[in-house]
């Protein structure tokens, strides 16, 4: 199936958003979405890591794993690559972008276990994307993830001082809002569709 990479890029932001249509990467989405600034920097970090790991994983899968008939190793190899890459990024940010390092704090290493990142690498294989499609998919998914978390942070800042039923405070109301956002995003589904 030959879909234009540009279509994939926009689709992964709006109609096939990692959070709002696949519900991947929820843990940090719920935990960090209380402040727009932090969410934005986490979103940038996720986009950055997603873009690069998709690229690396594409190369490793198509030039090492697939030719050797070891495609079934992709889960373990992908996650190891992601972990090592995040580690590397952490060292670089720690050294050269101190402000960003402190803003991200503990969440930077936590990107390793962000399901959205492994998800993108796996979807790329399942959907049989070529190189450009994969890159577009990786970057688009990152931006889509960022868009959702920033939007969520904006909503949460608005409802911060409003009364929420006791049992729904925190993650409860966040999940409900996520559901409403997902419904709203269905409105985009007429534009592009990749699944």
């Amino acid at each position, binding site marked *: 199936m030959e879909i234009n990479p540009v279509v994939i890029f926009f689709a992964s932001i709006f109609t096939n958003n990692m959070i709002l249509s696949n519900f991947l990467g929820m843990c940090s989405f719920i935990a960090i979405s209380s402040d727009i600034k932090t969410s934005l920097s986490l979103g940038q970090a996720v986009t950055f890591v997603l873009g690069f790991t998709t690229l690396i994983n594409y190369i*490793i899968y198509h030039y090492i*794993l697939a030719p050797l008939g070891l495609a079934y190793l992709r889960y373990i190899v992908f996650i190891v690559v992601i972990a*090592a890459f995040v580690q590397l990024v952490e060292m670089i940010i720690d050294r050269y972008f101190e402000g960003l390092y*402190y803003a991200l704090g503990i969440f930077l290493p936590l990107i390793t276990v962000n399901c959205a990142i492994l998800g993108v690498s796996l979807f790329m294989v399942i959907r049989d994307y070529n190189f450009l499609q994969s890159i577009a998919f990786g970057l688009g998914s990152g931006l889509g993830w960022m868009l959702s978390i920033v939007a969520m942070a904006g909503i949460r800042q608005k409802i911060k001082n409003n009364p929420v039923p006791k049992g729904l405070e925190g993650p409860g109301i966040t999940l409900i809002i996520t559901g409403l956002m997902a419904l709203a995003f269905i409105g985009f589904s007429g534009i592009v569709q990749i699944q």
Partner: protein
Amino acid sequence: MENILKTVLTLSTITGLLSLLLSIANKTIANYGTKKLIINQSKEYLVEGGDSLLSTLNEQNIFIPSACGGKGSCGYCKVKVISGGGPFLSTEKGYVTEKERVDGIRLSCQLKVKQDIEIEIPEELFNVKQLTYLVTGIEDLTSKIKKINFKLPENESLDYKPGQYVQILTPPYEGNEEVYRAYSIATPPSSKHAIELFIGYVPDGICTTYIHKYLKVGDKLSIVGPFGDFYYREGDKDMLMFAIGTGIAPIMSILRYMNENNIERKVTFFFGARTRKDLFLIDELHSLEKTMYEFKLVLVLSRPTPECNWNGEIGRVTDLVSKYILDANNKEAYLCGNPPMIDDLIPLLKDKGFIDENILYDKFE
């Protein structure tokens, strides 16, 4: 077979290459080189950059009190940073108050030494040593409290003030990680080569369980100390002391010190327990009553049973304040016990006219 080999080889190559890459990065990107560490404007150290301030100081044999071992969850390792500390971190927010923050107080386990850094720490911390102590005696004081005797290594001695505490590094066991836990020294400062600690059993307590179930005479334990600002203050004020349970440890250190040095001050000690069986060291306290200048012991039981055959005070130590203390004139109070006891006592003492400066306390949490 071929498939297995191929899998193993591929996986090892990929992970091997990644580890190599990370090791190289660690040596180059994460290598901050040698940095200058200045303490109290007088002492200068050359240290390897990149580590947390807490572990950098530990490497120079300067020990900052810390209960969690640098995880940023206890908030004890506060240090005043004059310059070079980098931005204030979100992980410090919960432990450093706004006022402390303005004064430059930082959590030393969180900030990393990435540039030349200048800090201020209390002079006493230079006395702090981490040594391997030998367990020379274990004795049951009550069914829940053990007295542990430790001996320092040969040629080492410990200088402490009566009332200060040390931290035991509990080794990992049964899946528990190693933790530091604080215990007050019960011996007087004259005992420089051997110390005594009272350790109560706390269900599920990592250190107390280890000590009560695993520790044997002849074992060795790593101990850091001395720490703490709860210690005997020179002066001529009458002293009122309150303790329950193992809270008696620092009080014993102070009493033994005063007894040894024939200090002529009036002391009243209120010691609380549940039943007669939970009281301990009573013989020694009674003999101190005879030898010390003017020492009065008041025992109080909160739940005496008929077997206790008790005709002394009944209630909590807090109930004794109104009965025994008239005013705060020329008096200072030393409180030691669990947080509720101390939180209840302080307002009662303040009602009697005590000011903060004359109430010293050590909360055993």
